[in-house]
């Protein structure tokens, strides 16, 4: 967006499309400089992955580990997506960790103890999650109670409820194979053409790449039609090649193990739907407007209370999805499920670039944030690092990410 075609003068020279093409490196440097915030997360993720690949002699980047890493990311990413919207509207929700644990336990009990079928249990738990979100939202939207306090109350309550429902039994084992497949299963392969290669995954990867390239070109065309600045052609191609290489790489790595897992599919669907909502729809615009300036939003005819209810309901819904993913992954419900999930989700969202001042943040950013966060955990585990140091390093990365974000934002002013 802020790529400029002017070669001479400093970074502040005015826009001008008529000058001779700048040298490739000069314009690359400049685009990176001006969009450092947008690219930084990707670069950070890349560096972290490269680092762990090096320190683990390539183990980190093995098909098996990447598949595992993505499955670990699932339940955090899903929470981070919901949390992103919550933070965008200047609120916070601390209750979601134990809410997800509690709802996961309810699902397990409903199946194990009452023998309810999985197709009934899952929608039921998802609806309960959304209702829980509405309940958290009520004091915030209606009575103006700070969300920190309202959701802290929820944190305590759901933690208590989780212990209550598991009190008699302790850990509840889940026997239902369909349910367990959500966290452990992989897409079936219909057309095996080569041994050890998951064809459907390759197919989906190719489709994703085609879609990506198509959307980039159509976007560029639109911008040019309105005379907006676009990347110079050589950089544009570089970007396409780069992203395509990454998508192809991920596809190839995944296809080499079991292919796409159901967790990854669910995570991608959630990210896709939320990305669409936040970037393309009226609702998304309203959410950002409420975060940017609630008073102006209200006076522009946006029902701020309604937006708060919607965002918290979505958060509750995703908390419950996260609970299902986690319980399914462990094939059981435990009394500690959900512990600290909310803080992991908040950290992922902040690493991904949301701002506590409200109105700023993207779904893709939070997905990357979640990947950064789980890559750290996963990589340090592979290195067999002491858990105590792991916390310190995760904390340092969070601090660096947020400091970097704030500093580049100030400079942009």
């Amino acid at each position, binding site marked *: *967006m802020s790529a*400029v075609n002017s070669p001479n003068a400093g970074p*502040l020279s005015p826009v001008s499309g008529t000058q001779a093409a700048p040298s490739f490196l000069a314009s690359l440097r400049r685009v990176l400089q001006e969009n450092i915030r947008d690219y930084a997360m990707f670069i950070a993720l890349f560096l972290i992955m490269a680092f762990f690949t090096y320190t683990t002699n390539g183990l980190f980047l093995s098909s098996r580990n990447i598949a595992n890493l993505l499955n670990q990311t699932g339940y955090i990413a899903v929470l981070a997506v919901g949390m992103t919207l919550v933070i965008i509207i200047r609120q916070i929700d601390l209750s979601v960790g134990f809410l997800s644990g509690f709802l996961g336990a309810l699902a397990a009990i409903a199946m194990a103890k009452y023998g309810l079928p999985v197709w009934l249990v899952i929608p039921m738990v998802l609806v309960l999650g959304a209702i829980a979100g509405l309940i958290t939202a009520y004091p915030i939207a209606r009575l103006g109670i700070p969300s920190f306090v309202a959701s802290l109350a929820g944190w305590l309550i759901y933690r208590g409820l989780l212990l209550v429902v598991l009190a008699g039994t302790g850990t509840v084992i889940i026997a239902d194979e369909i349910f367990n497949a959500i966290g452990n299963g992989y897409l079936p392969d219909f057309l095996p053409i080569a041994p050890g290669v998951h064809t459907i995954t390759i197919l989906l990867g190719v489709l994703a790449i085609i879609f990506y390239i198509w959307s980039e070109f159509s976007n560029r065309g*639109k911008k040019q039609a309105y005379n907006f600045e676009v990347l110079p052609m050589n950089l544009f191609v570089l970007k396409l090649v780069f992203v395509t290489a990454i998508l192809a790489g991920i596809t190839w790595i995944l296809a080499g193990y079991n292919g796409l897992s159901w967790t990854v599919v669910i995570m991608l669907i959630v990210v896709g739907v939320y990305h669409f909502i936040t970037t393309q729809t*009226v609702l998304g615009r309203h959410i950002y407007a409420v975060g*940017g300036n609630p008073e102006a939003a209200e006076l*522009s*005819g*946006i029902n701020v209370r309604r937006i708060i209810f919607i965002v918290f309901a979505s958060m509750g819904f995703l908390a419950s999805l996260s609970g299902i993913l986690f319980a399914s992954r462990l094939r059981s419900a435990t009394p500690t499920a959900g512990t600290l999930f909310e803080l992991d989700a908040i950290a992922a969202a902040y690493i991904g670039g949301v701002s506590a001042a409200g109105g700023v943040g993207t779904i893709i950013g939070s997905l990357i944030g979640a990947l950064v966060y789980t890559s750290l955990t996963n990589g340090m585990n592979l290195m067999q690092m002491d858990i105590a140091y792991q916390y310190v390093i995760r904390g340092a990365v969070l601090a660096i990410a947020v400091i970097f974000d704030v500093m580049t934002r100030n400079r942009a002013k």
Partner: protein
Amino acid sequence: MDTPILEMRNITKTFPGVKALKDVSFQVQKGEIHCVVGENGAGKSTLMKVLSGVYPFGDYSGDILFEGQVQKFTSIRDSEHAGIAIIYQELALVPELKVYENIFLGNEIKNRFTINWNETIKRARQALDKVKLDVNPEAKVKDLGVGKQQLVEIAKALSRDTKVLILDEPTSALNESDSENLLHLLRDLKVHGVTCIMISHKLKEVIAIADRVTVLRDGQTVITLDAHKGQVTETVLIKHMVGREIDNIYPVRESKPSNEIVLEVKDWNAYDPQLGRTILRDVNFNVKKGEIVGFAGLMGSGRTELALSLFGNAKRYRVNGEMFVHGKKANYTHPQYAIQDGVAYSTEDRKAAGLILIQDVKHNISLANLRAIAQRGVVNENAEIQVAEKYRTALNIKTPSIEQKVSNLSGGNQQKVCLGKWLFVNPNVLILDEPTRGIDVGAKFEIYSIMNKLVEQGMSIIMISSELPEVLGMSDRVYIVSAGRITGELPIQEATQEKIMALATN
């Protein structure tokens, strides 16, 4: 003439995509009142921010000479230290702190480790005396009116050893008498040797007070005029600012209002639970189709509160009374229903309540009417771009692109974005609260012309304005509001400044 106290030489300042100042040179003599005028986005505020170190040395090119020395301010602190104080258009006081705390904020009077509050209060009294402001230094700033807050800001500047005082549109939010007061004070300071630089769009006060006037246009100095040589008149100023002459800044309207009543309000009362008092009492008025109704009154007389209470009552006052829109009883519980019903309100406080500053121009313009450019909840971005471009052209919004963040626009251009947002809603009844605050003469003329066109097409406009000439120049009828009541209604033929003022203060 003696040597200038301040000189800016060949200042150039660029933002991404915009050259805000191009080689501007500017001289101020010691002890003069020097006004800076120019269209919205001409670069006035930017020039003053360069001078006061908001944009530090190295961020611009050119030289600043103060008292004969080249200065390289790296922050506001540096310029304050040198004796230059700037008062922004948006007041920078902390509302929750007391007057004396505000005056010495960042400049605390210390004993060894603690603040010497007694000395602080004493010195605050002296500073308040200098600006002839009679308030208790222990009052909280938020309890003062804007006019008094403005004076507190000046007291704050004077509490340090200020030689040059810069005021960026100090009177845009003040009523007539507060403005008078302020101008009086500036003359007084001049006698005491303080040099003032004032930016203003109110040419009358520029003419009244300036020793010299510098006109900026498109980031360049056009001319510096000397009032003592009789060079400063309204026509001359406008000609240099806009580049053409405007004879009558209130364009004539062809149409007459019809007799059809569009909006009628009966026995309207409102109680503000937060303030704990009644803010509107027995308000009755009506608006006809194709009419511009002016609402005059002092600041704080309750006109904004009236508008807010009618427009979906976002502040949640306790309201009773009746409101009819097109003869139908209306009971809006949220601004969204008012908008759906064709009633819109453009706020007086664009930064706090009008704009999403972190978003770009196009998102702000489309915000209140997204559904018009959406299919099944999905925004059509091409349509949005067209809409934004349309209003950018119609209102002559000065911005490098509609993808520019609104916070980067000049004050007047932000105001135009606000107006654009409501024009896009295209309501039947449009309530404009101080629509031309901070807007230059040329753009005012354009906005008045647009208002006329809308009214000719059958829209009705309620114009809340503290600028009496504007009320008299544009309205078909005037209601005067004082202390939450309507104290008078005058057809435009009978309205005069004196009559309105008399009713507004009774």
